[in-house]
């Protein structure tokens, strides 16, 4: 298992949006250990505010969120001229392909199924940051 150093051709931290604090803490810790700068939000409303304020290089967005769920948050980000360029990766507990397809149709750039395969997630993040 290898860790990947983040590329520096995209500035801005990674925004992790996750309401489950146990999982969120784990992912923050793990992303930081892999060398990424990480900020976080606990719900969709807060996520949009963080995106506007910090212009993250990428958003990892849980689907099941309080106040504003992942679908709605993604939709609003896509409708916002200042945010629509930011890649958004859905974190979903659904392994079904129909749900994955729904995520892509909803405007997500990619998805990762929970529990997260971390090396795969890092590879995806690298893919976006290096694109």
């Amino acid at each position, binding site marked *: 298992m290898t860790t*990947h150093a983040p590329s520096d051709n995209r500035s801005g931290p990674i925004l992790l949006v996750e309401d489950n604090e146990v999982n969120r803490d784990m992912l923050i*810790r793990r992303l930081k250990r892999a060398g990424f700068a990480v900020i976080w939000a606990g719900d969709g409303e807060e996520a949009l505010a963080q995106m506007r304020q910090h212009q993250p290089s990428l958003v990892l967005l849980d689907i099941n969120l309080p106040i504003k769920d992942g679908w709605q948050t993604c939709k609003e980000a896509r409708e916002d001229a200042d945010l629509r360029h930011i890649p958004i990766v859905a974190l979903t*507990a659904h392994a079904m392909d129909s749900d994955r397809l729904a995520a*892509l149709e909803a405007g997500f750039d990619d998805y990762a199924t929970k*529990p997260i395969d971390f090396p795969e997630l890092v590879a995806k993040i690298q*893919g976006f940051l290096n694109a």
Partner: protein
Amino acid sequence: MNAIDDQSSDWASRVLASLAPLRETAARSSVTLSEVAADDLAAINDAAARLTDIIALNNSEARHDRLNLIGAIKGYAEMLYEDRDQLHPAIVTSLEPLLAAVQAQTATESQQATFNNSDEEPGFILAVDDAPENRDLISRLLGKAGHTVITAESGQEALDLLETQAVDMVLLDLMMPGIGGAEVLTFMKSDERLRATPVIMISGRQDMDQIVACIQAGADDYLLKPFNPVLLQARISAGIERKRWHDREERYREQLERSERFIRATFGRYLSDDIVKEILENPEGLKLGGDLREVTIMMSDIRGFTSLSESLPPEQVVALLNRYLGRMTEIILDYRGTIDEFLGDAVLAVFGAPRSEGNDAQRAADCALAMQAAMAEINAANVADGLPELEMAIALNTGKVVAGNIGSERRSKYGFVGHEMNVTSRIEDVTGAGEILISDNTRQHLSKDYETGESRSVSAKGIGEQLVVYPLIGGAT
């Protein structure tokens, strides 16, 4: 949904059970932990406690929480393992059951996802990309879907692998140092063996012009970075499907070639190349089962050959026969006759089978005249070699015969049977040396331009009828 809930709670139970060795080891006073490792372990214990609380709940919210908590435990366990060099060996050992438990279900779930992906056939895929994270990602994504992936980090390595590995498709990065994707593509398309292997180009949006050039050069599709995994899967499936179709087509083609070889082997000796080719191009026009058709039958032999052969040394007999039959075969095939049989010096040929050309009797007559004309040349050669001169008789008759593959499964040949065959044989019996005798039936198929002599009546022994025959003297001029 209930089945999945049950699975995730079963999984949670297994994960919790697998924690016991780790907890026991960590509790030992002899085992010390770094601060980071202690934090990770505390987080695992915290998540495990929460997981215990909700393990028995059965609703979709609980399932989501369970997966989050398992995910957290998995994450911390993997982080501990990543730092295993700095851990007490006993911790590493006791971490293994936990890792196995958190990862086992991941595999099962992705197998389900693959299974849900229905009828997709797994493929053998070569992924070529100079960026290790892309190779890693492609391997993971496609590996999860059940495909076997080999990777190459350069164009050269890709070419080397392609030489030895029969892959179903190639994912090819466009921009690579050294030999680039376009060059690998060009090589593949110029190689007989690799030409049909589907190629998907991978590139950034900014390289669209080159992607278009690659598609024109034979690439099947393209994918933009970063990968959209669903698109990747879809294109892989389509590519593999295409390859399978191609392979199937190849097999059909081989089968066809085999039956073509069979047809050639069956007819090649008897038919001109033209007719074999026509049969192969229009196989439905040929009924191997046997059919009743009107043909013109030709029988020829060398008068007095049996007694002649008895008076000559065997090698001279063979030399005579080969020169004679060789030349006759050429002429018959020239007139698109079908040679049914050689019987010693006798030749049985048929015009109008396996397919009629409408002027079968006329071609047979022309052929017979050409054969008689060729005898002068053959005899000149015979005389030069000190061999005797030969005289040939030819009989022609037109009528309906059964044509088809006659014989058993093991040994059969395309042949002809019927009354008209016997009639032809009777005519041949009464044909004089150097003569062509044609039946009245055949004569009626010829235009008035053909010159025939006085009619004769032949009593056909065993046939019980009188036959009217004519000597054929000259062709249409």
